[in-house]
């Protein structure tokens, strides 16, 4: 409602900023997260966890600082984005801490407690969020860096190829002393900037200089160049980094933005055909991808013989055992998944302990973020802002779909993580930056336009009843 008012009504001097709504929702988000944290402690040890105060204070501080910065520097921003991110981040921390308590996981060699680290990562994420809002006074500034973004994105995407594969996929770069970074998460944002800048300039050429063929607009050969280049890059990522998720994410994001920029349905058809060809082609010879497909087709067939299938079977049993309402936090056995239980498969813990209801709630939270993003794109007044907002929210939606769909066995599993929820620094930091940019765009979009000069004609047009 407010969007409509703010963007179409002219003349409201002091449009509601909705900052107080946001504050109330942030407090609510922090409260829910602290409640979840307490719940885990009560279920596992029968007492309130000792770290609860620190955790609650930390989360409240993060949410509070983020809110104050938004209040000061992005007054008219969308009031839902920040509370949603805070809630997901806070619940993610509670879930990670819950899995840290699992004796079964602690006994597993690949596992290390991650909650305190994750809190630091969250702080870094919020710091980046604050940085974005402070430094980026107007999102249109980013337009200047279109081609630099392209170079940065390419470097980020290509870098992992030179680092050894971890767990079957080359999506990490390892910096000694600091740890591993997943550059793909950051590349997601940078490449959205590049696409937006590029498409804003080229969209007329792409949309109009085309021939009609069988009811579809076919682009000219030379205009096909960019999409072919991006497609080739996605395939290369898939082949050299064996990462279906990242590849799908970039290609999907590009097709969405291309469609929005040109309004030509033919791009969608092209995009679908090309991604299908790419995925099937690569899956037919890449063993890592084949493994995932086998596990997806019949997880239980490979019990005891095929580790990827067995893991998928464990994930499905975890979801199934949760049922409608779940076992309650701290009382499930999602730790039976063992490897990557608190990263890629953290949604299974939600499924088992919070049940169908919990997973649906989480999916709706993600859906709301996407919805606010799309709404921001609709409200944005400049094409660059529109493209950037839809690119980021589209990428976010595709990522949630690819990860959640993979974990729930809807599509083959890929190596990406649930935004904000899963343990892992890159993901949470990059996604806070993403939310920061969306907030900046929405602030610009919802900021009331300066009042026009009063029109004397307005009164003349009144209908006078006889």
């Amino acid at each position, binding site marked *: 409602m407010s969007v409509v008012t703010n963007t179409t009504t002219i003349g409201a001097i002091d449009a509601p900023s909705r900052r107080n709504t946001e504050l109330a929702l942030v407090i609510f988000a922090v409260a829910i997260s602290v409640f979840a944290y307490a719940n885990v402690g009560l279920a596992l040890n029968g007492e309130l966890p000792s770290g609860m105060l620190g955790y609650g204070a930390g989360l409240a501080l993060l949410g509070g600082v983020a809110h104050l910065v938004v209040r000061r520097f992005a007054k008219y921003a969308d009031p839902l984005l920040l509370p949603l991110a805070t809630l997901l981040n806070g619940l993610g921390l509670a879930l990670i801490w819950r899995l840290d308590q699992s004796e079964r996981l602690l006994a597993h060699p690949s596992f290390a407690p991650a909650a305190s680290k994750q809190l630091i990562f969250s702080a870094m994420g919020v710091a980046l969020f604050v940085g974005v809002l402070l430094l980026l006074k107007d999102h249109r500034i980013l337009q200047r860096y279109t081609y630099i973004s392209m170079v940065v994105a390419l470097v980020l995407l290509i870098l992992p190829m030179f680092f050894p594969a971890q767990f079957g996929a080359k999506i990490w770069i390892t910096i000694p002393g600091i740890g591993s970074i997943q550059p793909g998460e950051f590349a997601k944002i940078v490449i959205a900037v590049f696409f937006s800048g590029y498409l804003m300039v080229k969209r007329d050429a792409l949309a109009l200089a085309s021939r009609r063929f069988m009811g579809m607009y076919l682009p000219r050969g030379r205009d096909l160049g960019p999409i072919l280049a991006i497609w080739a890059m996605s395939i290369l990522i898939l082949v050299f980094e064996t990462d279906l998720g990242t590849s799908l994410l970039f290609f999907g994001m590009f097709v*969405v933005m291309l469609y929005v920029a040109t309004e030509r349905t033919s791009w969608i058809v092209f995009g679908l055909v090309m991604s299908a060809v790419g995925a099937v082609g690569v899956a037919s010879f890449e063993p890592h991808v084949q493994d995932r497909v086998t596990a997806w087709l019949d997880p239980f067939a490979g019990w005891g013989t095929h580790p990827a299938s067995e893991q998928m079977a464990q994930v499905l*049993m975890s979801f*199934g*055992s949760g049922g409608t309402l779940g076992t309650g936090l701290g009382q499930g056995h999602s730790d039976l998944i063992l490897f990557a239980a608190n990263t890629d498969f953290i949604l299974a813990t939600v499924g088992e302990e919070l049940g169908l209801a919990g997973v*649906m709630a989480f999916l709706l939270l993600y859906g709301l973020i996407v919805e606010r993003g799309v709404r921001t794109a609709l409200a944005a007044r400049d094409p660059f802002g529109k493209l950037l907002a839809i690119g980021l929210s589209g990428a976010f939606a595709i990522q949630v779909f690819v990860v959640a769909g993979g974990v729930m*066995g809807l599509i083959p599993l890929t190596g990406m993580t649930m935004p904000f929820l899963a343990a892992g620094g890159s993901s949470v930091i990059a996604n806070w930056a993403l939310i920061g940019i969306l907030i900046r765009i929405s602030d610009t979009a919802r900021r009331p336009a300066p009042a026009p000069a009063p029109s004397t004609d307005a009164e003349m047009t009144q209908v006078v009843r006889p």
Partner: protein
Amino acid sequence: MNKPLRRVAIFCGLLMLALLLRDNWIQYVRADELTNRAENRRIRIERYAHERGNIIVDGKAVTGSVEANGSDFRYKRVWKDGPLWAPVTGYSSQAFDSSQLENLEDGILTGNDDQLFFNRTLSMFTGEKKQGGNVVTTLNGAAQKAAFKGLGDKKGAVVALDPQTGAILALASTPSYDPSVFAGNSDKDSAAREKLLKDKDKPMLNRALRETYPPGSTFKVVTAAAALENGLYDDIDAKTESPLPWTLPQTTVPLQNEGNIPCENASLREALRVSCNSVFGKMSDDLGNKKMIEQTDKFGFNKEVFTPVRADASIYPEDNKPQNAMAGIGQASNRTTPLQMAMVASAIANDGKLMQPYMVAKRQAPNLDDVYTAEPEELSRALSGENAQKVQQMMETVVKDGTGTRAQIPGVTVGGKTGTAQHGLNNSEKPYAWFISYAKTDNGSPVAVAVVVEDGNANRDDISGGGLAAPIARDVMKAVIDSKQ
């Protein structure tokens, strides 16, 4: 640009919808299937998460539950006297699932059964620790001990029933095993189980329920019952039409008797007393295969018995004339479980009424409230009361001054029948010693027993129902009678 934006929004909505539908599919539609899959370790974690309820004999638990360390299974099953009770309880192992009562009554023992719903809901509010319920069996500790003591280190089985209710009083199978040795989840448990499975004496085979033997001469009481029921003979003391030697139909081979015993035209009573093959072989032949099958059906043959632990079906198959004649003396293709022969003895002792054998008397909630009490149930009318009493008289003569004298108990009327079942090609293997019997007091019959001993070590000539098996039956019957006083 807003039109495509709206379409993208719809597309994102569809992605979310797909996720929501998929989630409903795995967490609602397939929830039960995924929860109860054999691969799902949660079932076993849950089974051992709380103190498991006990299996109770004579008011005392024969099982226990101890806290085990070093695994996600918190409690471990233990047995007070494993080998003695393994044929009744079965095993319950963290690593290897469970069997028999431990398996069938798992819901009660873990406390998850629907019968405990009210109880469970109540303790959810009172905050009581979750606990399993108990299963109270019908077994008689003294009889069970007597059975094991009698069998000793010989291979065999004993089943004792209360003829008036069908309650199982003793259920022994030797050699037995201690389920405690593989109740856990360690390599040691695996090794112990592996050793038991490889043992050529098959200690984990429940011979009382899951092994069928040729019944030998004990089957003659069934043939006698069939003859009386079908009106072939009425008077057990009148002469029968039994020439000696009697040639098996369609052959030239005479049916041999054991030694030079007075079998020519012997009365039913006399023929059973000395165990005449020729008389009962001809009787079975005179009745025919169909009537014999009808009679065995009435005794509960030819189908599985659920006590509730499953017992294999004892069989009396359709067969040709000579085989049917041989089956009449228990030496052909008919095979029975020890439980089945105890059912035969108990039906005769209970004046022809066969009761359904059962071993669960009560199920108790964790707070010891009864949630189920067994009601004795008539399985079938095996023979008329009058004819049953005639067979009783014959069996009592066997014990009084026939082949079964070693089953006598001073001051108690005992009826019985011996059997020495030959088996193996051309009688090459050592025979099985059988004895079925019942005791009778003023209040009807309190116990019927079937004993089978398969002893490879004994001297061949010593193996006879009267010698090896009858004393075991006597001790078991005596234990039951003594414990009732």
